[in-house]
């Protein structure tokens, strides 16, 4: 039943023939493609990781740029507000000064008009006084007539002076 014979030698040679056939036509192509696939997957994973890292870096960069832009916008708004405030204050100040000037001018105008009016009144009083005096002298009137004449002149003066 158990006998070692020439089959041993045949099987020994047969095995190495099979190794040679399979190594050349089966295992090498299959192991090659498995290795190529492994390398491709490793490469793809490395690329994916690199892309992810790059995306993360870009995202951080954009976030930093956005933060800077926000800060700059805030600064611009603050600056504009300050400028507007300054302009407003300057305008108010200018307006106030203008008001003061106009008030002063108005006051001066009033004073000038008043002085003019007073001058006119004085001139009218003089001319009226002259007219009264002329009438008194010309008519030689009695005391009662003089009094009435003066009263009349004063009334006229008042109505004229007051316009």
């Amino acid at each position, binding site marked *: 039943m158990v006998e070692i014979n020439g*089959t041993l030698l045949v099987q020994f040679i047969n095995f190495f023939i*099979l190794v040679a056939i*399979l190594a050349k036509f089966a*295992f090498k192509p*299959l192991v090659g*493609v498995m290795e190529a696939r492994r390398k491709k997957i490793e490469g793809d994973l490395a690329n994916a990781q690199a892309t992810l890292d790059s995306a993360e870096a870009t995202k951080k960069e954009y976030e930093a740029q956005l933060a800077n832009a926000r800060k700059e916008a805030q600064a611009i708004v603050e600056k504009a507000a300050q400028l507007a405030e300054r302009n407003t204050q300057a305008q108010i100040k200018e307006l106030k000064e203008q008001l003061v000037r106009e008030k002063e001018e108005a006051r001066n105008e009033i004073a000038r008009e008043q002085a003019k009016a007073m001058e006119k009144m004085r001139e009218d009083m003089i001319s009226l006084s002259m007219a009264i005096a002329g009438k008194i002298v010309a008519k030689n009137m009695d005391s009662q007539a003089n009094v009435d004449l003066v009263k009349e002149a004063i009334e006229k003066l008042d109505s004229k002076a007051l316009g």
Partner: protein
Amino acid sequence: MELHTGTHDVVHMWGMAFNMDTIYMTWVVFAIIIVVAFFATRQVNMVPSGVQNVVEFILEAIGSQLKGPLGKHFSKVSSLLFTFFVFILVSNELGLIPSPHILTSPTNDLNTTLGLALASSVSIWVIGAKMKGPSYFKHFFQPFAVFVIFHIMEEISKPVTLSFRLFGNIVAGEIVLELLNGLAPYLTPIIWLVFSLFVGVIQAFVFTILVTSYLGMAINDEEH
């Protein structure tokens, strides 16, 4: 009841005897492996499908177990180890296909298992010498020259244990299957058949992993 398992058709040529049934069955195994390999490699794609997918799965599963003892040297000897595995696997399972004494396992013949074991020993010596040069043979004389006797005994015992383990498991499994088939046909042999299929895979794996281990010891510096 006469057992068919373990008997061989012996032919005498050139002063030697040859078990022709074993040789024929070996060629059948070759044919099966080559046909499967042909379909697996007919159109090798980066995205595997069909037979290529199945064969790649087997190679990946076995390769992941064999890489450990060999490390970086695995790729150089992977073809040898994969051939051991697929040849023994198909040989073990071939005898389990129900047939009227036509299909038998080549591995139920000690000549086959011993031939494989000797092939493993010779391969280990050649690969060891190729990778480490003549210094490979120094370890036979370490730690002292007298230890060469023990090393030679070890080198003899390795193929003997490898071949008898495989031969014993397979021939015993087939004998029991034949006995059960004669004593209680149908259900009981089917249960044993399923168990034998499992044993066939395990024995192919054990043989390959042991050869890998011996090879690892031969080519890795830290082992000597």
